[in-house]
């Protein structure tokens, strides 16, 4: 960082991964899911219905470019080209702007399907805390949505709200969770549910002598209370799973668990890929159905 350059505390780690134990060249069906969200974009590639690779990055100014760049990461890492992919599904708020997608499916259905893969078929409640909205979803053992609720009216309880706090506190976003537990006593949640007012309230608390960690704890608690009030409308049925970027913030997750009285299921996968993964899996099912229909017609 050079003098005068502003440090971006909100900036979260982008990631790109492929499963080198799999040879995609042997696959019968390769599908991709592209989730273009308001803050982040992900591309997931599945080979024969199994996760093969993903790329998660920040959404740029244009949805088509973000979709292209997200997929490019996986393609370059694997040596695959777009023509190797049989079917592509777009999801997220920019789902209709994925230039190479064959179909668009809402992020609600895709998150449920992705969570079913990542957390197993006993997942019944999903809380997706995305960049600028928050969703509570119930699903069945196949990952099919049975009940959902979405709040996209304001940024409180979302990734964007947490980015604002990271910048305000000048603490890297990945450290906020751990910092929020490094307090002498658990503070009251910031009272405002609006991210703009929460920001000025946080500044007021700092002036009143709160440590940065205590302000972060108060904000994590407010976020947890807000999403819990949302999820309570449809109820929590075990097992419970959290997707989206905030799932990586232990400060919010542990507080949500405490308020709900249940633990969120663990996963070895990146919580941010759930939507794109679900989209890729939808693509695989669709291709299987088409293949079965074609085989039936030919018989």
């Amino acid at each position, binding site marked *: 960082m050079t003098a005068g350059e502003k440090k971006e505390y909100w900036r979260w780690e982008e990631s790109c991964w492929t499963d080198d134990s799999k040879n995609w060249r042997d696959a019968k069906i390769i599908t991709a899911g592209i989730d273009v969200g308001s803050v982040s974009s992900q591309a997931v590639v599945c080979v024969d219905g199994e996760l093969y690779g993903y790329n998660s990055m920040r959404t740029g100014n244009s949805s088509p470019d973000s979709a292209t760049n997200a997929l490019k990461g996986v393609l370059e890492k694997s040596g695959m080209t777009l023509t190797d992919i049989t079917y592509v599904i777009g999801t997220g708020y920019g789902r209709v702007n994925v230039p190479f997608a064959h179909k668009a499916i809402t992020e*609600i259905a895709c998150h449920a399907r992705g969570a079913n893969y990542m957390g197993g078929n006993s997942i019944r409640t999903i809380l997706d805390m995305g960049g600028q909205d928050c969703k509570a979803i119930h699903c069945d053992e196949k990952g099919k949505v049975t009940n959902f609720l979405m709040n996209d009216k304001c940024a409180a309880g979302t990734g964007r709200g947490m980015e604002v706090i990271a910048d305000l506190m000048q603490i890297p976003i990945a450290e906020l969770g751990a910092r929020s537990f490094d307090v002498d006593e658990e503070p009251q949640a910031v009272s405002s549910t609006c991210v703009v007012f929460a920001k000025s309230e946080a500044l007021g608390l700092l002036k009143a002598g709160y440590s940065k960690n205590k302000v972060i704890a108060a904000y994590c608690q407010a976020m947890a209370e807000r999403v819990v009030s949302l999820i309570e409308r449809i109820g929590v049925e075990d097992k419970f799973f959290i997707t989206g970027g905030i799932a990586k913030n232990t400060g919010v997750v542990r507080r949500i668990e405490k308020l709900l009285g249940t633990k969120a299921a663990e996963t070895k996968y990146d919580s941010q890929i759930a939507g794109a993964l679900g989209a890729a899996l939808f693509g695989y099912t669709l291709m299987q159905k088409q293949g079965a229909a074609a085989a039936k017609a030919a018989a």
Partner: protein
Amino acid sequence: MIANYGYKDGSGEYYISIDTDQCIACSAQRACLTACPKGMFEIISDDYDEEVAAVKPNFRRSLGFDCSDCKPVGGYTALPCSSACTPGAIKHSW
């Protein structure tokens, strides 16, 4: 599927929930489309390719205000939308 459209803000919770399983073989001839004076409902093909009712996106963040004519402060006995939907698919949270 129960689809909840709406929001929660400082003044309360404003959700319209639609039991879309009822819409698949709607026995009310899609009465929701014409019953609502604001035209707030539409039929969409959902993610599982079923034809179901939904609240139009442009109303989802302002339901409290948009439904106020049907819900006078003095009280009301029935709402045009839920009365017309005889399968009982439409419910309001407020």
